[in-house]
């Protein structure tokens, strides 16, 4: 496993399938990663790439059936979450691992005040009494930058704007000082100026509280701004994994390369024509016996149809510790000089 400190979260060979009438959908296929203390791991992928299902599987948040976690281990501080019973899971969710969902409008309960929703995990997990929970709730709202916090405890979600609601969601996720915060597209529903506020807040909180964060997004711009390491997912698999600067300077997987070229830049020379990834994302029914990207890949050859490539190291470090890629094609030696 990766060098340095013991990972706070260690996911090994996670497999999740959905049983549908059309057959089994292999939504998460052999996903492994480790999250070190205090780091921010970015997870990038398009819709259907398996990034959200992976995170939901970690905490067993998916309805089973139709979902089925078919294998793997999720070690949180050495304990396998996938083996826990309902009570064990309850003690992990919200307490050890906080979750921020994409749409704060639908994930907050409209009929309870914001204060009640922040106090709920405090009373359930920490056993605080009402007065202590209220005090802590005010602290949390102040922490996430909501002015007039004491008064706002008695407001309902609809009285907050989108950005403020997302701040409330973050406050709830942080209520019990989790070791790991999982944020699933937390800024996607927000406008750019509000998104900038939230990103700034997360950077601040991270510096102050030091928890490890998994940040799921489809926006490479967001990743470039906040992540330490990046995991690129496609078709339910990890196709590339690298430290953030390395990934942007020296992408190895044809999908990552193409993805970086399809998005126009905000500065520098204007690109004459956008690069296109032809075709559609794969449908994940049937066992994944070949590379999921092969139908859209410009470097496709025989091996891609015969075998699903395993992750292999690019920089000599162990897989999962440095830069690795799941592709049969070997990119030519780095041409662009990596950024210092």
């Amino acid at each position, binding site marked *: 496993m990766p060098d340095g400190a013991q990972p706070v979260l260690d996911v090994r060979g996670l497999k999740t399938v959905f049983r549908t009438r059309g057959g089994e959908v292999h939504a998460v296929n052999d996903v492994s990663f480790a999250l070190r203390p205090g780091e921010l791991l970015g997870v990038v992928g*398009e819709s259907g790439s398996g990034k959200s299902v992976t995170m939901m599987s970690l905490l067993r948040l998916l309805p089973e059936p139709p979902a089925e976690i078919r294998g793997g281990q999720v070690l949180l501080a050495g304990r396998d979450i996938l083996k826990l019973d309902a009570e064990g899971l309850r003690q992990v969710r919200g307490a050890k691992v906080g979750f921020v969902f994409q749409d704060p409008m639908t994930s907050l309960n409209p009929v309870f005040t914001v204060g009640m929703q922040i106090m709920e995990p405090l009373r359930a997990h920490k056993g605080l009494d009402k007065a202590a929970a209220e005090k802590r709730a005010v602290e949390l709202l102040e922490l996430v930058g909501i002015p007039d916090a004491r008064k706002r405890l008695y407001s309902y979600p609809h009285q907050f704007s989108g950005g403020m609601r997302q701040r409330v969601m973050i406050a709830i996720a942080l209520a019990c000082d989790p070791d790991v915060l999982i944020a699933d597209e937390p800024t996607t529903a927000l406008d750019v100026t509000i*998104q900038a506020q939230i990103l700034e807040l997360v950077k601040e909180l991270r510096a102050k509280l030091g928890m490890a964060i998994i940040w799921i997004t*489809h926006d490479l711009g*967001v990743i470039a701004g906040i992540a330490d390491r990046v995991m690129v997912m496609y078709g339910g698999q990890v196709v590339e994994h690298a430290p953030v600067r390395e990934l942007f300077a020296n992408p190895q997987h044809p999908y990552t390369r193409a993805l970086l070229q399809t998005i126009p830049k*905000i500065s520098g020379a204007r690109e004459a024509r956008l690069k296109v990834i032809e075709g559609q994302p794969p449908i994940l029914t049937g066992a994944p016996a070949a590379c999921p990207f092969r139908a859209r890949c410009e470097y496709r050859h025989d091996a891609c149809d015969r075998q699903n490539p395993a992750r292999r190291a690019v920089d000599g470090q162990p897989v999962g510790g440095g830069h690795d890629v799941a592709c049969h094609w070997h990119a030519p030696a780095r041409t662009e000089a990596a950024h210092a």
Partner: protein
Amino acid sequence: MLDATPAPLVQVRDLKMYFPIYSGLMRRHSGNVKAVDGVSFAIPAGETLGLVGESGCGKSTVGRAVLRLYEPTAGTVVIDGEDVTRLPAEALRRKRPAMQMVFQDPQASLNPRMTLARLIGEPLDEHTDWTQARKIERIQDLMDQVGLNRRFLNRYPHEFSGGQRQRIGIARALALNPRFIVCDEPIAALDVSIQAQVVNLLEDLQEKLGLTYLFISHDLSMVRHLAQRVAVMYLGRIAELSPSKDLYARPLHPYAEALLSAVNEPDPVIAAARKRIILKGDVPSPANPPQGCNFCTRCPKVMDICRTVKPALTEVEPGRLVACHLYGITSAAGPTGASEATERNQQGVTQ
């Protein structure tokens, strides 16, 4: 006055779109949501004007009012020499083929019970008296143009992916050979790898057919790629209208500056070096906009005059229009500006 280019295809002057608010027991008209409050711009034939802003700034309302999908409260919209805001119903109907729209959500804007042939052929049924054979020929021709396989003629929208559905929406818009198309967030609902496909298609069609676009989007990088000129809207008004390369190199209006600085550049080295301007608070309600400049409650460079006098959109550099008191011209804007100048700021500073 606003544009030196001779005879633009689309000329919008002082467009206003107010939505009335009715409240109380008697449902009395108690105010207006000023979704669009005096917007002017021109688009020369064959060009793309980008219209950017955050949700609620009125950009989609501009797009709809320009095509008279809403009845504008005031202002004129001259498209190809005719003021569409004044056209009577029948004349407007005859004008429709020239001005079309591509909608944001192809899932919601395509009738799920119609086949592709009927969807794309609907404008032809409505506006031509062609024979069925000729219509089918045109439909197939359109499908070729937008990159849909001809064999899909009798399929239904649910059988297609998001990107393909957007192609159907584009084919519908193209059916009657329009000159002007309003694209309202046409790529917002699509995945990153599919967005580029649709954008390239729009560019190809523009070149081939000489189309003029009003491209409405919140994606500032994509607008930079597509548009020759860009209008930045805030709370129903245009804050800055500049050539794309000037705006992105050096935004003049403080809101444009903050908006651009908030965009995430997909490059960690640049991202680390960039200074962001973080705006405080949220956008005020368009039902009760601030007195004076509508950005004064959040502007990092706010001055006293901003809280009382509404700045006019003025040419401060060749080709660059900015509505901001920082740029010296302190004349009050429009017919309401003068009275507001003397009014006290009742709103106060909400911070």
